[in-house]
C-alpha cells in the first residue's frame, strides 16, 4: 500500500469539490430536506400522540443516522462515478495504482464528505429541533463506527457492480439504502417485523445500531455484546465487498472491459 497513490485519488476529489459548488451542494441538499421534514413530523407527533417519550430523538435521531449511512455509501460511489463520467478508467488502471490504494482513496473521500454531512445534520437538528445526539456521549462513537463500516461495504459493493456491468448500471447504486431500510428497524423495533424479515434484519449491522440506540434512549439500557456483533458483522461485510471488488477487477481485466468500458459489454 502506497499512501501517496491513495492520497492522489482523494486529492482529485478535493480538487473537484473545491472547483464546483454544485458538488458541495449535493452533499447537503437532500439530507437537510430530510431533517426539516422529519423534524416537523416528530414535533407534530409529540403534540398529538401523548406518548410517554419524545419522538424527536427516536425518529429524528434515526433519520440522522440513516442519512449518515447513506452519505458514506454514496460518498464512495460518487467519487468512483467521477472516473466513470470523465472516462478516466484507462488512465487510472493503466497506472501503477493498486485496487487497495484506489479504494482507500475513495473511502478517504467518503470520510470527509460524510463527516461534513453529519455535522451539518447534527447542527440543524440541534438548532431547529433541539435534538442533541452529542448528549449521548462517547456511546455514539461505536454506533457511528458500525454505520460507517457498513456504508463503506455498501459503497464498495455498489462500485463493483458498476465496474462489472458498465455505466448504465449506475441507477443501481442510489436505492440500496432504501431497499435495506425496512429491514434494519430505523423507526420501529425489529420485533415488529414478520419472522422472515427479522432473519434478514439480524444479518444487517445497522439493525444493531437502531435497536441499540432505541434501548439507550427509551430504556437507558446499553448492550455491548449486541454492538460488538454489529461491529463484527460490519467488518465482515467490508471484507466481503473488498473481495468482490477484487474479483470483479480481475474479471474486467481478463475480459478487457476497462479498455472498452463505455461499450457496457457483458461478454
Amino acid at each position, binding site marked *: 500500500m502506497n499512501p501517496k497513490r491513495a*492520497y*492522489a485519488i482523494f486529492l482529485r476529489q478535493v480538487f473537484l469539490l473545491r*472547483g464546483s459548488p454544485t458538488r458541495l451542494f449535493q452533499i447537503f441538499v437532500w439530507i437537510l430536506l430530510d431533517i426539516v421534514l422529519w423534524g416537523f413530523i416528530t414535533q407534530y407527533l409529540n403534540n398529538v400522540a401523548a406518548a410517554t417519550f419524545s419522538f424527536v430523538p427516536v425518529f429524528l435521531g434515526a433519520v440522522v443516522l440513516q442519512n449518515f449511512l447513506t452519505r458514506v455509501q454514496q460518498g464512495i460511489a460518487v467519487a468512483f462515478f467521477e472516473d466513470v463520467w470523465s472516462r478516466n478508467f484507462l488512465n487510472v488502471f*493503466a497506472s*501503477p495504482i493498486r485496487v487497495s490504494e484506489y479504494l482507500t482513496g475513495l473511502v478517504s473521500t467518503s470520510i470527509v464528505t460524510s463527516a461534513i454531512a453529519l455535522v451539518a445534520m447534527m447542527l440543524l437538528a440541534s438548532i431547529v429541533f433541539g435534538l442533541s445526539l452529542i448528549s449521548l456521549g462517547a456511546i455514539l462513537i461505536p454506533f457511528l463506527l458500525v454505520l460507517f463500516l457498513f456504508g463503506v461495504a455498501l459503497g464498495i459493493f455498489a462500485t463493483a457492480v458498476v465496474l462489472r456491468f458498465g455505466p448504465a448500471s449506475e441507477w443501481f447504486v442510489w436505492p440500496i439504502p432504501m431497499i435495506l431500510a425496512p429491514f434494519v428497524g430505523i423507526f420501529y423495533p425489529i420485533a415488529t417485523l414478520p419472522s422472515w424479515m427479522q432473519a434478514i434484519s439480524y444479518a444487517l449491522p445497522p439493525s444493531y445500531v437502531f435497536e441499540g440506540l432505541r434501548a439507550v434512549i427509551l430504556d437507558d439500557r446499553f448492550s455491548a455484546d449486541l454492538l460488538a456483533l454489529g461491529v463484527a458483522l460490519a467488518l465482515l461485510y467490508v471484507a466481503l465487498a473488498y473481495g468482490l471488488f477484487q474479483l470483479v477487477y480481475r474479471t474486467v481485466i481478463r475480459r478487457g472491459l*476497462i479498455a472498452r468500458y463505455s461499450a457496457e459489454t457483458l461478454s
Partner: protein
Amino acid sequence: MIEAEPHVLEVRGLKKTYGSITAVDDVSFAVRRGEIVGLLGPNGAGKTTIINMILGVLEPTDGSIHIEQLTLRQNRTQVLTRTNFAAVYAQMPGNLTVRQNLHIFGLIYGVKNLKRRIDEVLREFELERFANTRCGVLSSGEQTHAGLAKALINMPRLLLFDEPTASLDPSSARIIRSKIKAHGQRERIGILWTSHNMHEVTEVCDRVLFLSRGKLLLTGNPKTLPEEHGKGDLEELFIAIAREPLSLKQRRLR
C-alpha cells in the same frame, strides 16, 4: 548503436482470444532503449489490444510481457511505474486543470520533486499558459499536448503511443514528433508507436512491425522495407498488407 542497447520491452508469444475470436495470435517482439518501434496494421489488426495488454488493463490468454526484465504479471506496480502512455481515446479528465491533472498522475506514478517536474513538462509542451485551465476547454491539439505531458511526467523507460498525433494539424504534429523523438533519444526511452500516418512512421520509427488479423507479418526498417517487398513506399506496403496479407506472407516465406 541501438542494437547494443538492452531490451526495455519484450513480448513473447502473446495471444488474446475472446471466445472463438483470436484478436492477437502468438506475437513476439522487443523494443530496445532509445528505439522507436512502429506497430502498424489495418483497423482491427490487434494493435490497441497489444497496447492494452502491455499497460496491464487486459490479461493475455497466453504469452508473457517483460518490461526491463521484470514480468508484468508478477510485478505490475513496479513495471508500470516505469511505463506511461498517451492515446487519442484516453484524454485527461476535462473537469480538472492541466496542473491539477499532472499533480494527480505525478502522485500516482510516484514522481520525485513533483512540482519541479510539472513545471518542466509544462514548459516542454508549451502548456505554461494553460496550466490553470481545465483540460475540457482546451483545443484537441492542446489536449494532445497535455496528454503527452502526462505521459512523460514520470520520466518513463517505456512509452506507448496509440495514434498520438491523430488530432493534430500537420504543423503541430511535426513539432510533436520532433519533440518526442528528441526526448526519446536524450532519455534513452523505448517507444512503441501506433499510427496510420505512414509518413509519420517513416520519419519517426527506427523499426516497424506489421500486424494483420492479430498476427505479426513483417518487421524491418521503415525506410528500406517497402523496397524489399517491391513497393514504392510504406503506405503502398501498408495497403498491400491490409488487402492481401497472405500474398505478402507467402512472398516472405519464399
